[in-house]
């Protein structure tokens, strides 16, 4: 069996906001097929690390390699789908339908003079079908529930068929049952469609049964490894001891 490809490599990444260090010499590799949970308390640098992987922030020191290219020269951003922490913080009166929200990502990369409306429509509807929103095509995005909005943003990230999906605390403010459905959906994307997933969260319990790799961040990377090993580690026991709700269940 061939070795999975290294999709993102961080080497000795250091980052500071206005001389205040946030990330210290992070070494992290994301492999093809990973469902990686990026864990850590508030202020641990999880969002900063995701933004560095996406090229939205430049590290002060260190190296970032994405799909084999140094991030400075990387061009194929459509290979990465991103759902930011603030995705649902948009103006609820913004006059865009669910269809327009998903299509904006797909059509942004296309030459408008060479459009193929039928193919585009099928791609948008297929992405909406993946997240179970095919009935909401014409509904204004502000009229959806938080859980549905988050699924619409996942559809927008999936519509251009990325290899990696990066999600920053995607279920904040969503009820527990919807969260479970949401993570089951992500698990299916990972296991059935082979999409590598990087998920930022500070709630280990809710994602414990979906992930296969864990990275724990507190400024420094204090753990990076396979999920089963993480469950046997003293850090895991410490998290359980701290009262985090942990369900140990493997698919």
């Amino acid at each position, binding site marked *: 069996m061939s070795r999975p490809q290294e999709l993102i490599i961080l080497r000795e990444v250091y980052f500071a906001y206005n001389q205040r260090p946030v990330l210290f010499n992070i070494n992290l590799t994301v492999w093809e097929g990973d469902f990686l949970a990026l864990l850590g308390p508030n202020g641990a640098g999880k969002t900063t690390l995701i933004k560095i992987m996406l090229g939205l922030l430049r590290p002060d020191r260190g190296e970032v390699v994405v799909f084999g290219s140094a991030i400075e020269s990387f*061009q194929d*951003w*459509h290979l990465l789908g991103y759902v*930011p922490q603030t995705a649902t913080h948009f103006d609820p009166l913004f*006059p865009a*339908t669910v269809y327009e929200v998903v299509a904006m990502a797909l059509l*942004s990369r296309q030459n*408008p003079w060479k459009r193929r409306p039928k193919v585009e429509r099928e791609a948008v509807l297929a992405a909406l079908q993946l997240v179970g929103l095919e009935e909401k095509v014409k509904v204004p995005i502000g009229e959806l529930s938080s859980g549905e909005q988050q699924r619409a943003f996942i559809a927008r990230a999936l519509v251009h068929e990325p290899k990696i999906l990066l999600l920053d605390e995607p279920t904040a403010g969503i009820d527990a049952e919807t969260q479970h459905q949401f993570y089951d959906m992500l698990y299916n994307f990972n296991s059935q469609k082979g999409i590598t997933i990087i998920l930022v969260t500070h709630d280990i319990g809710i994602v414990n049964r979906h992930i296969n790799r864990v990275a724990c961040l507190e400024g420094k990377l204090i753990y990076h490894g396979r999920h089963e090993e993480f469950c046997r580690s003293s850090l895991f026991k410490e998290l359980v001891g701290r009262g985090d709700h942990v369900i140990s269940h493997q698919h």
Partner: protein
Amino acid sequence: MSILWEYGFVQRALLAGLAIGIGSAFLGVFLLLRREAMIGHGLGHIIFSGIALALFLNFAPLPIALAVAVLAALAILKLKTRAGLHSDTAIAIFSSVGMSMGILLVTLVNRFGVDLLSYLFGDILAVNKTETALSLVLAFIVIIFIAYFYHQLLFLTFAPDSARAFGLKTERLEATLTVLTAVTLVLGMKIVGLLLMTSILVIPAATGLQLAKSFFASCLLAAGAAAFSVIIGLWLSLTADLPAAATIVLISFVLFLASFLRRRRRLF
């Protein structure tokens, strides 16, 4: 209504008004959703300083005002993106400096007369062939820009972080949008005047946003509201002998009010 195409000067006024009105409405939808409604007001003050500078140097006002407006628009953008200032702060700083410079230059040249007043209040019925042609070319450029970059602009407006992560050249898009706004304001000052130009940029777009359920429909309704305001406003001003610019703006406000009441009835 025949009064609108009986005379050459009215035809030019109608064409220039429609061109600036529709171009402004399209730009306005993006500006309003990006919370940059006051950029028209701020740039208006800066353009005032450009006209004062032209009068001071005894040059033609249009090219000087255009250069000052474009440079200021780009500087506002730089302050926002590089210095981390909020756009309303950057606009307020440039707006005050622009107005102060304008007042200083006007005082020095001692010509706060007809020339300057015509730019502050506009005179749509006095637009010449060149100004009409320039307005039509500008409207064409705005429409082509928005049509070509429609989805990128929508992405940038709706979700700037995701648009950047997606690899869109967001700074370039923002710069083009701001420069086109500046150019539209300069050409529009002859039509409705600098003092009322913000209303042409904002009110029809706000009307479109009140009524539409999709972004595409918002753009079309904003352009429709602008065109209706120009046609009816111009006709009313000619038949009732009213000032054209103010009548156009008030008609557009009536449309906004109607759309606002209609939306409230739908919501409550």
